[in-house]
């Protein structure tokens, strides 16, 4: 219990530090928030304009909700993935990586603090976007299963944390291009996970690949709960794979990171500021 208390206290170092950085980089945060809001609005307006584009009758409000859910869920998952995966590239950029790695902190504790921050930050960021988007569109969530949506989102966070931990090793191994490589992972997930379209729109050979992406289950589960008012029992089919893949991805991510850290210490890669 004492050890757990110690690890929780130490993990708070990363939560506090990251929120201090958010506070100090407030200008950048404002720019990022404005960009995210505009991006969400632009995509959602595609749904609103579909009748005009196609000339055919379309259930516009359903399409708006479909795209809005995709935009917001993807934004949240991308923020979580980004916060975790950029844990190393950020420290490299600031030049603090050696200091943090020299501190008596278990990597699991560091990850825990980073993940807590990323979930809280992601939720806050997404909530602000939702509030702004709600001003522009008539959104009816009266029939939505909000609790189910939150459950699916939290279950999906586990997998994204695990993938983020795995991706964070890239800047450790590739000092100059590692951060950009994590963007490639995000881009592939965006393509195959049915963020803005059902995965059935993809070529047949991509369907099995799409089924390997946790984001596919998060998005389908969220749409079922928010658009079709699916109950908790029917959401189980989405939550279970997400929890299982999270339970697999997090230890795997830790093992990959541990290997990467040892490699960096053998080859002197922690030193370079990239």
């Amino acid at each position, binding site marked *: 219990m004492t050890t757990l208390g*110690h690890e929780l*206290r*130490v993990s*708070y*170092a990363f939560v*506090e*530090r990251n929120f*201090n*950085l958010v506070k*100090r*980089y407030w200008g950048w945060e404002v720019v990022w928030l404005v960009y995210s809001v505009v991006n969400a609005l632009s995509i959602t307006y595609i749904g609103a304009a579909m009748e005009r584009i196609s000339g055919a009758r379309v259930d516009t409000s359903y399409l708006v909700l479909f795209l809005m859910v995709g935009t917001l869920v993807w934004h949240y998952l991308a923020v979580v993935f980004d916060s975790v995966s950029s844990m190393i590239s950020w420290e490299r950029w*600031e*030049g*603090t990586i*050696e*200091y*943090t*790695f*020299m*501190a*008596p*902190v*278990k990597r699991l504790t560091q990850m825990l603090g980073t993940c807590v921050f990323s979930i809280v930050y992601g939720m806050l960021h997404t909530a602000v976007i939702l509030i702004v988007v709600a001003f522009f569109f008539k959104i009816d969530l009266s029939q939505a299963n909000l609790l189910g949506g939150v459950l699916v989102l939290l279950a999906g966070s586990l997998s994204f944390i695990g993938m983020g931990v795995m991706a964070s090793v890239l800047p450790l191994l590739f000092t100059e291009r590692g951060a950009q490589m994590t963007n490639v992972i995000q881009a592939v997930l965006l393509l195959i996970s049915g963020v803005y379209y059902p995965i059935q729109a993809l070529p047949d050979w991509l369907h099995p690949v799409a089924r390997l992406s946790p984001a596919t289950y998060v998005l389908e589960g969220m749409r079922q709960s928010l658009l079709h008012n699916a109950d908790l029992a029917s959401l189980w089919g989405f939550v279970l794979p997400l929890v299982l893949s999270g339970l697999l991805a997090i230890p795997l991510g830790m093992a990959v990171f541990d290997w990467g850290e*040892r*490699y960096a*210490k*053998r*080859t*002197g*890669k*922690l*030193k370079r500021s990239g």
Partner: protein
Amino acid sequence: MDDLALVVDGATKRFYSGSWKGWPIPGLAPRNGKAKMVTAVDQVSFSVRRNEIFGVLGANGSGKSTLIRLIATLLIPDQGRISVFGLDVTREEMRVKRLINRVSVDAAFFKKLSPMENLMYAARLYDMDARSARKQAVEILNRLGIMAESIYSPLENMSRGMQQKVAIARAFLTAPILLLLDEPTTGLDPRSRRDVQEFILDLRRSHDATIVLTTHDMEEADRLCDRIAIIDNGRVVALDTPQGLKALVARGNGRDPTLEDVFMDLTGKSLQEEGEREG
């Protein structure tokens, strides 16, 4: 606890860079003429007694910083063994980390954060009580000449010398019993350098700390260090007290030899010479 604070026994560290079809692959062992191997630390052995200030003198690229990184658990030695108070730095890494801290030549901070925010981050990493850490941080920073108004402003607004003082304050805050100072006064003005040197002496007196100090400053080494190892091309070429080292060199031009004379005599180069072995 062991009377020997640090034992370095045959430590060796090599860095490789290789290539595959023209693509650089750092870390790959050399297999052809294009690959390169650098021995940054070569069979280095010495021990440091508890409460000693041990100096490491060497030109740029001589292997000083690599040696400090090996002790600080930031690098894994290829050969040899390093122990801190009897704990192996590779096998008992976490326990060693609790005993040490390091100040590097480049003050590594979150530059947008204030000194206080950076120090509180350090305090939490070392699981210190936040309230008392905040109080101690102010005391240490004031003592190093950093005024109250600067403590809560972003570090990027401070001069390099002031940033280096904050780095030293951060290391002192966590009360390490083995402090690794890698050229801590490089870039400081004479007044700041003197403040830091006094603080180092005081830390040894009041906190029973052992200090390993790398420096280019001969006067500093002479003033602070109980013993000094001179390192050249990754190897220790001499190790003794400042007086013992000076005794190795004959008097010249009717004056007593300085540490610089000793260094020139033993290595054939000046301390400012650039090397290629480390950054």
